[in-house]
């Protein structure tokens, strides 16, 4: 299966660069999610790969083949859209077999391919029904099945589960995982939903303002954001950011922040003294009523129950001005805390990120002593 390469790809609408000079490779035989907020250019980028939009400049290659000027049907790709495309009046099986007929496949081969995808997607009970009798989620499965049965080398998915209900979403996610485990197509999957991307992707390409700002495996993207945007966009809620100060003392770097009890050693390269941004994910912040030398005193303003019984804590600490800190703690830890009042806040050093003035992550490690983090 070929990889997809885009080179210096630009799509402008007037003065707006929807896709801004992107050079990127979608590796073969894997799932790459284009993730980003609305208007980031992810759909435009995918539509150019599909041939539905022509780039203002730049090139697109499938393997060694330049496809920039080819019309969509000559690119030999499969596409699944936000709204399922199915033909009413034809059974699910016929829907799946229809495109195979135009490829002049032998009837037995056609039947076999249809049976395979019907089984793979769990469409057996619906195989002889008319799609108009099916719910939206199952219809979308039919649309997926039809594209998969054609066995194109590349399949593009454009927010395929955005418009189905919660139960069907889960079914489609499961089906998609099963499918991609067994197939080795090059898959591009566009979504604005971080959970979907984190769940389905081999790699996530995070987009903002027409550019790919980071591309990594889901867990790496989450735990090692390349810039503030990645820290903010992923996570629920996203990363906390606070102004901090980097200083050098006796040839070593020190970090000063109201959230750290004292100057804290920093190890890193290309550092400069001055203001930096300290970032920490809410679920990494430790909050207790017990005083400790590694913690700073703070005030718990509010606590509320979140996903899975975790508690979201809204906290204040001296030196943060009117900015609040959010912490997400385990159900057990949250139950032990008062509804409001005095607490101690600790940031595990190895979970603290530093960002420069341009928002990019600094190559720095906070704390030299290895931090043992209790669960």
């Amino acid at each position: 299966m070929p990889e997809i390469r885009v080179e210096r790809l630009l799509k402008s609408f007037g003065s707006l660069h929807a896709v801004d000079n992107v050079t990127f490779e979608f590796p073969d035989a894997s799932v790459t999610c284009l993730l980003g907020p609305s208007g980031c250019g992810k759909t435009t980028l995918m539509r150019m790969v599909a041939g539905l939009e022509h780039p203002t400049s730049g090139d697109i290659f499938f393997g060694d083949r330049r496809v920039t000027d080819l019309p969509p049907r000559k690119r030999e790709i499969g596409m699944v859209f936000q709204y399922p495309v199915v033909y009413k009046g034809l059974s699910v099986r016929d829907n799946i077999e229809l495109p195979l007929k135009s490829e002049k496949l032998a009837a037995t081969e056609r039947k076999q391919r249809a049976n395979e995808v019907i089984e793979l997607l769990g469409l057996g009970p619906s195989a002889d029904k008319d799609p108009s009798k099916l719910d939206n989620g199952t219809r979308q499965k039919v649309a997926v099945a039809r594209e998969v049965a054609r066995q194109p080398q590349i399949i593009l998915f454009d927010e395929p589960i955005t418009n189905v209900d919660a139960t069907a979403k889960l079914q489609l996610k499961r089906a998609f995982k099963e499918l991609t485990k067994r197939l080795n197509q090059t898959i591009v999957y566009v979504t604005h939903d971080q959970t979907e991307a984190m769940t389905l992707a081999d790699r996530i390409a995070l987009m903002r303002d027409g550019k790919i700002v980071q591309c990594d495996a889901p867990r790496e993207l989450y735990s090692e954001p390349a810039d503030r945007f990645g820290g903010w966009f992923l996570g629920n809620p996203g990363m906390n950011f606070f102004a901090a100060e980097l200083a050098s003392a006796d040839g070593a770097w020190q970090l000063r922040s109201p959230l750290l009890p004292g100057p804290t050693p920093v190890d890193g390269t290309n550092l400069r003294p001055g203001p930096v941004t300290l970032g920490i994910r809410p679920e990494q912040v430790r909050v207790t009523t017990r005083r400790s030398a590694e913690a700073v005193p703070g005030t718990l303003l509010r606590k509320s129950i979140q996903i899975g019984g975790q508690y979201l804590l809204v906290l204040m600490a001296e030196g943060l001005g009117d900015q609040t800190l959010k912490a997400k703690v385990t159900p057990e830890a949250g139950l032990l805390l008062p509804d409001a009042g005095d607490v101690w806040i600790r940031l595990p050093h190895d979970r603290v990120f530093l960002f420069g003035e341009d928002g990019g992550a600094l190559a720095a490690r906070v704390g030299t002593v290895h931090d043992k983090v209790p669960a």
Partner: protein
Amino acid sequence: MTDSAPIVAFDGIAQQYKRLRVLNGITLDIDRGDFAVIYGPPATGKSVLMRILVGLEEPTAGRVMLRGFDATKIPAAARNIGYVPQSFALYPHLSVHDNIGYPLSLAGMSAHDAEPIVRHAAEMLRITEHLEKRPDQLSGGQKQRVAIARGIAKQTDLFVLDDPLAGLDFKLREQLVEDLRGLQADTKATFLYTTSDVVEAMTLADTLSVLDGGRIVESGSPERLYQRPGNLRSMHLVGFPPANFLPASLVGQAGALRCRTSLFEVPVDVTGPLVGDVVVGLRPEHVRLSPGVGGNGRSRAGDGVSMPAQVLLREDLGGEEIVYLGINGQSLTAVDRHQLPAGELPEATVTVDPADLLVFSAANGELIGHGQGKADRATGERHA
């Protein structure tokens, strides 16, 4: 009228459109200064109740008490409620500024008097820099802020916000949820807020009222409803992902009562009739997972029960995972804070502490007891 009277009291409110009964006797007090959230699945009549409160609909039966007086027949304009309707429309030909000020001028306020109120509302919603723009120059989230600003640009002690964040993407909601709490702290007014998003409801509410089937199922602090729901329906509705429920039956006798499900049998403490069908409720965070396969569904007195499970899907939310499991045809949902190793994991071991189980009557859904766990995890304290 006294200040100690609830600012709003719904007294047996029913609403029926021809044969369709939407509200079926809503009796609920809203306390002064509260951030009160009415939460329920979509299309359960939350908006209808809000429209009755602000005076856009008259109920089929019941009374709306407002600031201690019967307001059922008082026209909307005289109720002095700041209102953000669920589907708002901004006036396309008016600037953001004039959109926000429109209800004030409609109420006869001079532009001079309205100006500081409009400015203040815009400041609170952080749209000051957009005041001179027209709605079509704004993003969806900015428009929503304008609609909220228009609703709160009013000097009153009561604001009604009817699912104001519906349809926004979740990063925007995250920001606006925080803004709304701040807004209430600033104005010290009573906020009555509806939503069909349970996490939003739990995050915002001082008092959470669950509306379902035309009735208030239960009302209380989100923490109380979550930790100690009074009935099966509120355990099902309050919490995400939704709790697990297993059909079960009580066996044994007083003092040594056990609860038998298709997955396990555990000792329980139950009040009321000691035989018959029950339903066991189990929160996803209490379905504890470990890699590898073990357990047989039995427990010795007070120990956890373990059993092997098939992992059907792991949904990664970033900070945590929702894990969908199958055990002998029974599905179970778990939440894991990345204690499980990443990557392929076809099977895992599920462990349940019986103390985490709640027991409901199968007949009427009322909470009747709980499982018996380890001695040092006394349930009374844990669930208080």
